[in-house]
């Protein structure tokens, strides 16, 4: 019996020739990740662990990104505790000025290679599937276990295959493919499963689109979202200074077994928007166009790469944000920010009356840098639109791609680029 990509990665991490869905394994972990929100609990729990020491501090990364630069005293305190823990144990630590949003930062720093298994105390750790790495979100106690034991218990997931056909039209990217998919299968459509994305439509898209799609696998309930790594990934990892030796460029066997196979023709796609309050409430942008908005957020771990900022700049160049709207641009990392400065993108944004922020998860989870007031409405390139996600429980978040977000900022209401 053939194995899927997910099964191959897990088999290689538990010393087994093969694994099958439903099996419980102890899997060797290549990298453990936490933010300050999960990291503070990691630090507290780890210090309680009798006989615990970090097996390999180089395989543990703390990224201060959720409420940083510290939004209030309590946030400053939890960051301080993470910082002290990191110093004491010699783990990798990314602080303000050297950091970024973890899921943009780690691949860019060359810390993720194809075939890796990453346990991240952040649900969007599935983003690394873009590089053919098995990233999965866990809690803080799981992270502590992985740090002390070097391994994590996992149930081998069933895999579901998503085939995207056709050539996606202009303005349609990875965000639209994944939003459509979540709309089709629902927010628990891939619960406990490994999503695997493939098909010729993806040949027309870049690695940034893969990051966006893998990032949102969790919004369908999945354990991870994988792409078989290819030449584009090899280039990306090589440029990032990542590990090329020993990286595993696996793909699923032709006779691998899937719990489900979904096929979508992207030829007639238009950009999609997820309405409040679930990412599955997906409609074509033309059906929601005209809804007035108060704010736009572009960036975050879902769409915070340089390619995403280029997309936004393409729309905002020579235009101005609608007077009723606040537009906030958040590059995914210091490097993305600097590259955007050098390319002149930041000048385009500021000239267009956008606020450009240092990297932070801030507004996506209603932390800071763009919290919504009662009844306010936001178009965001982030990944969640749960009730109260970005602020007041009555505020609303519409999820969209960077083209649509930028066009909406200009229009003052939800719009596709063709409408402005």
């Amino acid at each position, binding site marked *: 019996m053939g194995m899927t990509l997910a099964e191959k990665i897990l088999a290689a991490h538990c*010393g087994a020739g093969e694994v099958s869905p439903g099996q419980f394994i102890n899997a060797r972990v290549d990298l453990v990740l936490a933010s300050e929100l999960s990291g503070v609990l990691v630090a507290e729990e780890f210090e309680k662990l009798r006989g615990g020491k970090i097996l390999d501090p180089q395989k543990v990364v703390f990224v201060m990104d959720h*409420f940083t630069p510290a939004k209030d005293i309590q946030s400053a305190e939890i960051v301080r505790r993470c910082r002290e823990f990191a110093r004491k144990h010699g783990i990798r630590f990314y602080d303000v000025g050297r950091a970024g949003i973890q899921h943009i930062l780690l691949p860019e720093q060359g810390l993720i290679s194809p075939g890796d298994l990453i346990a991240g105390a952040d*649900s969007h750790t599935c983003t690394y599937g873009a590089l053919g790495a098995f990233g999965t979100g866990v809690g803080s106690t799981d992270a502590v276990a992985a740090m002390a034991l070097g391994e994590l218990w996992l149930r081998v997931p069933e895999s579901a295959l998503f085939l995207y056909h056709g050539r996606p039209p202009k303005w349609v990217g990875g965000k639209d493919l994944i939003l459509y998919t979540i709309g089709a299968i629902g*927010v*628990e459509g891939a619960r406990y499963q490994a999503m695997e994305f493939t098909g010729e439509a993806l040949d027309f898209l870049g690695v940034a689109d893969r990051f966006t799609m893998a990032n949102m696998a969790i919004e369908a309930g999945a354990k991870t979202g994988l792409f078989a790594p290819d030449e584009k990934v090899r280039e990306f990892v090589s440029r990032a200074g990542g590990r090329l030796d020993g990286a595993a460029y696996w793909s699923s066997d032709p006779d691998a077994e899937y719990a489900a196979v979904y096929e979508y023709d992207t030829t007639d796609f238009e950009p999609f928007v997820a309405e409040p309050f679930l990412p599955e409430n997906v409609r074509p942008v033309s059906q929601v166009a005209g809804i007035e908005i108060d704010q736009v957020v572009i960036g975050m771990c879902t769409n915070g790469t340089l390619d995403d900022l280029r997309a936004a700049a393409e729309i905002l160049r020579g235009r101005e944000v609608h007077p009723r709207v606040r537009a906030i641009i958040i590059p995914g990392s210091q490097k993305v920010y600097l590259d955007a400065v050098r390319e002149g993108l930041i000048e385009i944004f500021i000239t267009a009356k956008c606020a450009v922020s240092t990297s932070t998860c801030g507004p996506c989870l209603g932390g800071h840098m763009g919290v919504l007031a009662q009844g306010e409405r936001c178009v965001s390139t982030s990944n*969640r639109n*749960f009730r109260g*996600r970005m602020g007041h429980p009555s505020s609303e978040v519409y999820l969209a791609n960077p083209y649509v977000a930028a066009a909406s900022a200009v229009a003052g209401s939800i719009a596709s680029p063709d409408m402005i």
Partner: protein
Amino acid sequence: MILRGKVWRFGDHVDTDAIIPARHCNTSDPAILAQHCMEDADPGFVSKVRWGDLIVAGTNFGCGSSREVAPIAIRGAGVSAVIARSFARIFFRNAINIGLPILECPEAAEGIRQGDEIEVDTGQGLIRNLTTGAGYQAEPFPEFLQRIIDRGGLMPFVEEQLTARAKDDPPSGDIRGSN
């Protein structure tokens, strides 16, 4: 463990932002977290819930974030167990890891009403509705997970493994199962 209490009902896809909004997650203090439990789903929940009460919910309970403070806030608010049609996977792990009893039981999630008094035998997975007399059997946990549950969470399980390794092997970076 036998639990007994009143039921608070919630619907499908109760997300972690509903369980504990991120704006309150800048602390690890269970007492502070508990004060905001279910704040955006039912603003009065914390003042109404009594120690030992149970949550019964629909499908995909705990979807969203990996925040372990979600089950911590639920436990801190006095909730003794969560019964749902199904759980999102990270919440499922986190609840087991910190020792918050959870039971997957579609029939109970369907049949039990807001305010019902129920009794739960967590060891057997038996749920009895004292208000209506109905009984339900929750899905049994796989043996591997039951071992973690029996120890009260993942930390004692990890300590056991560390002790076993110290006995079996000289200290090294090697781990079981690696090549």
